[in-house]
């Protein structure tokens, strides 16, 4: 069987090119891999190799020809002894092309406008703790430590690594006592090398180990963000579901106090943009414990955003042997009927205090703690907005493309007809964090801003 040599494409966008020269002549013996000709475009050159062995029976496009269309037949290779006289040299061969997938196109339809969602229902967090459960008061710091210790006792594949997690007992003392209980094999002090140890932990997770990576703060995780996103979040998809990455990246996120621009960024919105990641941001000790345990058990990469200011705050934590909360479910922290305030993490501090103050002014606010940023429990938010008709979001992160922006867009798309006022966002100011005490205060949201904004959407 004679073999057709076609004009190759150097890139998916190439349509034609020049046949610069032939390196073999008609009648030459060729073997697989021999270079037959050189092709040129304005951007690249390519060598055309023989596909098979045989005789270069016929050159159909002479050297020096310009603008030869891709897939045009340029030569024919015949087997030795094969007659080429009857070979048809006519039309360009129709090389098989990857189909342009008409099925896929059919799926691209305009999204339906569902401004009156019939059946959204709020998640009921009240059943998370059985009635009659005893509570202990713990700081978020202790709750996080207990969560890790419990999971490490439960599963030998769980280990923690990071800067100062072992002998120093944690830069923020979250890993206090873990080295003593689990030893240096499972509580691993790393060099100051975020990019390296994040990648190393992701590699370990590919084998089925379940690393907890502590970043001293998420500001430093920017050094490692390639591995969080490109290596951890995308591998399951890129491997067609074969290789997962059960890992938790955790540490303090957002502004602490007086640490200036490079140590104060809130990454909630950044990570929430990434398919393949789960993003958790608890606001209190109990949620921190239940969600961290869930994150460690989850087979997916989880970005677990803590907050330095919240570490020392105490709250009731259920005294249960195995308190695990669902990832992806919000909690109604305060019921109300006049307006919905949605927040998470340290933003809840402003939200709840503002709600108290609003209550004294006769406005009954419902406060939703998202707890998980991705996947976001938008159903609970929509159900609330259907009831109140108003929504204000509160976060410390920047406004553009922030978490509040996403909530606002979802409400507009899915509950537009229920709105009695525009959704408003309270965010950190659109500036790098200043150091001076007065400026720092101005850069962050305030309870007063939340109160005033809620009153504005209530037309009060």
């Amino acid at each position, binding site marked *: 069987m004679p073999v057709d040599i*076609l*004009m*190759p*494409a*150097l*890139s*998916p966008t190439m349509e034609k090119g020049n046949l610069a020269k032939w390196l073999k002549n008609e009648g030459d013996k060729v073997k*697989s*891999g021999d270079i037959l000709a050189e092709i040129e475009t304005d*951007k*690249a*050159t*390519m*060598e055309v*190799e023989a*596909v098979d062995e045989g005789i270069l029976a016929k050159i159909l496009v002479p050297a020096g020809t310009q603008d030869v269309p*891709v*897939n045009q037949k340029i030569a024919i290779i015949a087997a030795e002894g094969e007659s080429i006289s009857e070979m048809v040299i006519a039309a360009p061969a129709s*090389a*098989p*092309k*990857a*189909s342009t*997938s008409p099925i*896929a196109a059919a799926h691209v339809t305009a999204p339906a406008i569902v401004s009156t969602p019939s059946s959204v229902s709020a998640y009921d967090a009240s059943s998370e703790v059985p009635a009659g459960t005893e509570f202990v008061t713990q700081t978020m710091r202790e709750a996080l430590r207990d969560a890790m210790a419990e999971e490490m006792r439960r599963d030998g594949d769980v*280990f923690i690594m990071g800067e100062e997690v072992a002998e120093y007992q944690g830069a923020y003392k979250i890993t206090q006592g873990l080295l003593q209980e689990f030893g240096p*094999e499972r509580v691993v002090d790393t*060099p100051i*090398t975020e*990019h*390296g*140890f994040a*990648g*190393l*932990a*992701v*590699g*370990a*997770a*590919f*084998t*089925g*180990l379940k690393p907890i990576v502590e970043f001293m703060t998420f500001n430093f995780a920017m050094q490692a963000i390639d*591995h969080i996103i*490109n*290596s951890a979040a995308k*591998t*399951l*998809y*890129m*491997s*067609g*579901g*074969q*290789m997962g990455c059960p890992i938790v990246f955790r540490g303090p996120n957002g502004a602490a106090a007086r640490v200036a621009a490079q140590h104060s960024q809130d990454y909630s919105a950044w990570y929430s943009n990434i*398919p*393949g990641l*789960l993003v958790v941001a608890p606001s209190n000790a109990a949620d921190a414990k239940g969600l961290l345990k869930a994150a460690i058990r989850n*087979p*997916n990469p989880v970005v677990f955003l803590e907050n330095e200011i919240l570490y020392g705050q105490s709250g009731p934590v259920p005294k249960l042997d195995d308190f695990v909360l669902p990832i992806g479910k919000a909690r109604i922290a305060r019921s109300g009927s006049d307006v919905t305030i949605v927040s998470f993490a340290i933003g809840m501090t402003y939200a709840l205090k503002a709600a108290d103050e609003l209550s004294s002014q006769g406005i009954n606010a419902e406060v939703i703690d998202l707890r998980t940023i991705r996947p976001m429990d938008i159903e609970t938010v929509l159900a609330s907005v259907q009831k109140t008709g108003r929504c204000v979001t509160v976060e410390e992160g920047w406004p553009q493309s922030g978490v509040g922006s996403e909530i606002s867009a979802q409400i507009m798309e899915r509950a537009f007809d229920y709105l009695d006022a525009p959704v408003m966002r309270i965010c950190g100011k659109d500036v790098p964090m200043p150091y001076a005490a007065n400026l720092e205060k101005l850069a962050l949201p305030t309870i007063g801003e939340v109160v005033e904004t809620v009153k504005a959407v209530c037309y009060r």
Partner: protein
Amino acid sequence: MAVAARKTTSAGRASTSVKSTASRSGSKKNSLPQNFTRDEDVRAYREMLLIRRFEEKAGQMYGMGLIGGFCHLYIGQEAVVVGMEMAQKDGDQVITSYRDHGHMIACGMDPKGVMAELTGRRGGLSKGKGGSMHMFSVEKQFYGGHGIVGAQVPLGTGLAFANRYKKNGQVSIVYFGDGAANQGQVYESFNMAELWKLPVVYVIENNRYAMGTSVSRASAQTDFSKRGISFNIPGEQVDGMDVRAVRDAADRAIQWCRDGKGPYILEMQTYRYRGHSMSDPAKYRSKDEVQKMREEHDPIEQVRARLLKDWKLSEDALKAVDAEVRDIVNEAAEFATNDPEPDPSELWTDILK
């Protein structure tokens, strides 16, 4: 398919040159490599040829528009991965960059699945969702297929960390190029690997060009075997065009790791015949340079010559190998051309477990 019968152990061969390896100064070239047995030469020939023919076919299919996007061919470098593989044991892990087709075939992954991934079809190893640069096999312990230059180095170091954690005696083989060798994360990895004595062989495939930038234009220290010196990691330069030299060095390096002595660096001096990817200006090196390499150092021709001269194999016997390899590649191409594209519903799967 017969390709899959791989990963025999190298036990039983005398390893004579263990002593010369521990040279901590790096860069010692070792004396003449130990000869292969006839079977080893046949195996090396067949495996390198399979990679070469597979890659040539991939290049052709790219030219026909069947393969899209980026496609980085391994032609010229075959001896590196085949020689390494001949020294590995079952369970040893492999991880590499985006120039990964050869590594996957050497690991025993199905050429049909690899080719169908290149064409973006449902029978591809990643269901068509990864493409040329992103394939994985839990079964064959192949951990990708990574598109960010240098990223596989900490990831592969993590595989070694897991080996130490699990005390399973396995070694992680981490491939990267002379270009990646300048990435900071490589040195972060070297530091941790030696600090924790992780069983990892860093195989630097020095094919002389990082895309179009020659080693001397990008590297202050062009002897890559010395790149571990400040971490106390031993290294050696290896003739990466001679599969015997590769296997010798691999034996030493892997044994070093398995003995718990920590990481080891092998600089494989090799050469890429083709462009960096399919779209390559070919202006940064002369055609003579490429031609000279192909004529004088081709890894496959070296073995072929031995088979004919030393082992007295007939041309017909080699033709039979060629034909078998061609059939495997043609079958892969056929499958990859006719296999349907992924179902549209696949868009939404495998994002989370």
